């Protein structure tokens, strides 16, 4: 039996999803990933007391998604996929933690998040990797950090100032987001608010991903004007965060000019988002069926002139930043992740593109207005902090172009439509290229036309491991810089 083939945002009936034997699913998944496909989701769902495991692989060249499933009735273990496919590493740990079905031979089987409902954390003790040898020492940082940083524990195995290995333990922000979605599935407004709170820096990204999934499941086709406004909001979010990151990266190397200039530019962009919807991070803007706020012609002009000004000033500031010898000395050849590694561990987003992986959901699995405005995929080769900074700069310029395109193509019309009830027993995969990379929400509906299971994946889920790899053989004092160059979300990972 072959896997069912769908596209982004195309819902599929549950009974159409092939149910394979676990060994067959494993072999076919390995074969798919080896032939260049990418593991997008790998998660379980309870089905009348049994556990159903869904695996979703993406073929980015042909914009296709492949889905298959397997059922565990009494079986409590299966052979791990991770030794063959490293990018399955965290997915398998998550599946084990949530359903207690053990991947045999998983090389790194530890709890993923603290205090998952139903799993006593003492059942699977967390053991840190330890390194032995003379003069080897461990440095533990967190989970409580100085400054405004989310909680996470970083354990460095060092020799002098040199990092040999970094282990990252997360889960301190676990709020049970997926559980809350199912528990409150009769309250649409609550769900929309919840989707905005998955990761505070990706409000537009996550709320848009969720809204699109709901629209697909309810066969709602949203007005074109709403699509344009969503696209503008998503690109504004990308610009704002990228500018903030350039500011923070400058700060981490003590470069005052970059820190203050980019920080000021970011404020102008988030204030533009506020002019649209009244909130600087775009809360309440997106609802299933469209958007809550319209962009008037005057506001459109204001947005256009602001982003163009910001674009000019960013170009000036970036020229100074990226030609400053003292900054380049810190950025270049620091925290390198090469292309082969990036593909192997399944990196996504600007960090992957900075390592030469041409992956951009806006172009590979287009959604919303991107279906009509193809996005050119930007990549850089060096995979170091410099590449991850520079790609932010060129993506800001690209976002400005996209926003101007959208503003130039405004059509009259409504901004939202009422949403019909969800169709029962279906599954939809919603992929969106947020500023950090691929956001993937999978929603399964039950008999009652409500959400039965939602699987949320923030891009951070793939990229945290890249942070660990990037700091190997680097000085421990360069860790904050490497970490910031990825700028991953703790709450998006912990859910």
């Amino acid at each position: 039996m072959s896997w069912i083939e769908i596209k982004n945002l195309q819902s599929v009936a549950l009974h159409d999803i092939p149910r394979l034997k676990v060994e067959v699913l494993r072999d076919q998944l390995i074969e798919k990933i080896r032939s260049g496909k990418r593991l997008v989701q790998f998660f379980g769902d309870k089905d009348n007391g049994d556990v159903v495991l869904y695996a979703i692989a993406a073929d980015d060249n042909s914009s296709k998604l492949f889905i298959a499933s397997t059922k565990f009735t009494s079986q409590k273990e299966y052979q791990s996929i991770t030794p063959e496919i490293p990018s399955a590493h965290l997915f398998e740990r998550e599946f084990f933690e949530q359903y207690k079905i053990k991947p045999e031979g998983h090389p790194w089987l530890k709890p993923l998040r603290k205090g998952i409902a139903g799993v006593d954390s003492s059942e699977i003790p967390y053991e840190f990797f330890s390194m032995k040898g003379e003069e080897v020492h461990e440095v533990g940082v967190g989970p409580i950090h100085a400054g405004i940083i989310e909680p996470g524990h970083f354990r460095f195995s060092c020799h002098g100032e040199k990092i040999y290995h970094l282990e990252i333990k997360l889960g301190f922000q676990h709020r049970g987001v997926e559980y809350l979605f199912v528990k409150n599935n009769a309250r649409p407004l609550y769900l929309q608010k919840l989707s905005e709170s998955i990761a505070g820096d990706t409000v537009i990204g996550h709320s848009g991903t969720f809204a699109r999934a709901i629209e697909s499941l309810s066969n709602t086709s949203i007005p074109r004007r709403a699509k344009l406004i969503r696209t503008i909001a998503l690109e504004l979010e990308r610009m704002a965060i990228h500018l903030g990151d350039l500011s923070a990266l400058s700060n981490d190397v003590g470069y005052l000019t970059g820190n203050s200039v980019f920080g000021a530019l970011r404020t102008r962009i988030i204030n533009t988002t506020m002019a649209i919807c009244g909130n600087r991070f775009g809360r309440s803007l997106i609802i299933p069926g469209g958007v809550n706020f319209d962009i008037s012609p005057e506001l459109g002009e204001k947005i256009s002139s602001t982003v163009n000004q910001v674009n000019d000033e960013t170009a000036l500031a970036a020229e100074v930043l990226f030609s400053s010898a003292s900054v380049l000395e810190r950025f270049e050849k620091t925290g390198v992740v090469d292309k082969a590694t990036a593909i192997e561990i399944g990196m996504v987003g600007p960090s992957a593109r900075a390592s030469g992986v041409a992956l951009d959901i806006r172009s590979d699995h287009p959604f919303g207005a991107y279906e009509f405005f193809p996005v050119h995929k930007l990549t850089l080769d060096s995979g170091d902090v410099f590449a991850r900074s520079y790609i932010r700069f060129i993506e800001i310029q690209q976002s400005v172009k996209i926003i101007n395109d959208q503003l130039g193509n405004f059509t009259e019309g409504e901004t939202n439509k009422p949403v019909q009830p969800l169709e029962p027993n279906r599954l939809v995969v919603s992929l969106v290229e947020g500023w950090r990379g691929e956001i993937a929400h999978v929603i399964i509906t039950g008999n009652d036309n409500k959400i039965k299971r939602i699987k949320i994946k923030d891009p951070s889920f793939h990229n945290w491991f890249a942070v660990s790899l990037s700091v190997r053989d680097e000085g421990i004092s360069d860790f904050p810089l490497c970490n910031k160059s990825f700028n991953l979300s703790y709450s998006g990972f912990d859910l």
Partner: protein
Amino acid sequence: MRYIPFILIIISPFLFTGLINKVKAIWAGRKGASVLQPYYDFFKLVRKGEVISKTTSFVFQISSSINIAATIFALMIIPIPFAGSIISLPGDFVLFSYALGLSKFMMILAALDTGSSFEGMGASREATFSTIVETAFFIIMGSLALLTNQISFNAIFSVLNMSAGYTVLVKILLVVSLFIMLLSEGSRLPVDDPNTHLELTMIHEVMILDYSGPDLAFILYATSLKMVIISMLIANLLIPSFLTLAEALPLFAFILFLVFMVVGFVESLIARLRISHVPQFIFLMTALSLTAFAVIAFFLRGGF
């Protein structure tokens, strides 16, 4: 009368750190806090209580006091034009260097006393860098002793006159060298970033993480004072001995002001060095002072 300049210096250090912060704020496009802000912070800290970690011993508690005492003692050895220094004896620059060394040693001990891996790391960095600085400092003083044939600060600076011939070159080399010492000892960019909140990248800041209240105030004061002391050395080097009192003292104050302005500019315009490259930067100080020493030795022998 003789003590008035000394007293002015004793109360001035925070004015200079306030000045650095003001320069940086203006570069960043901000209005910035008042130049007096470090004083407000100081008095706020002095009024506060202290939290002392249970894992520490008495070393932790006496360190900050010894640090500030040793630093003030070091200040007393540095001459001010016409006023001279409070303590002067042959070879007093060795005493000066060890007074600063003692203050650093106590801070390193206190950092190790806390048992924190961060502070141990900071202490190891601080110790490494100051070893290099100390050697270079002795080469600087050796050059000046060779040039003037004197062996105390007071005597050296009262006859020092580097405004003609090859001594101008020596002067430039030594001033740059001392400026690097100031950046390193004062924990400023590009050696250390006084504003960072990232423990892993800190040097000086991480060593004092466990301090609070009056002890922290003392440490902040001692660090600022150390920078003033080194900038006083620079000023002494730049002021020729033939000036009158009315010329020398304003010039002295102006040079201190200028040095801190330059520190502010440096912090605004360049990024911090990678820690593994910091020793190379500090070794520049050694190279410059060795060159100065060689130039003096060469010309004292009669030149070509």
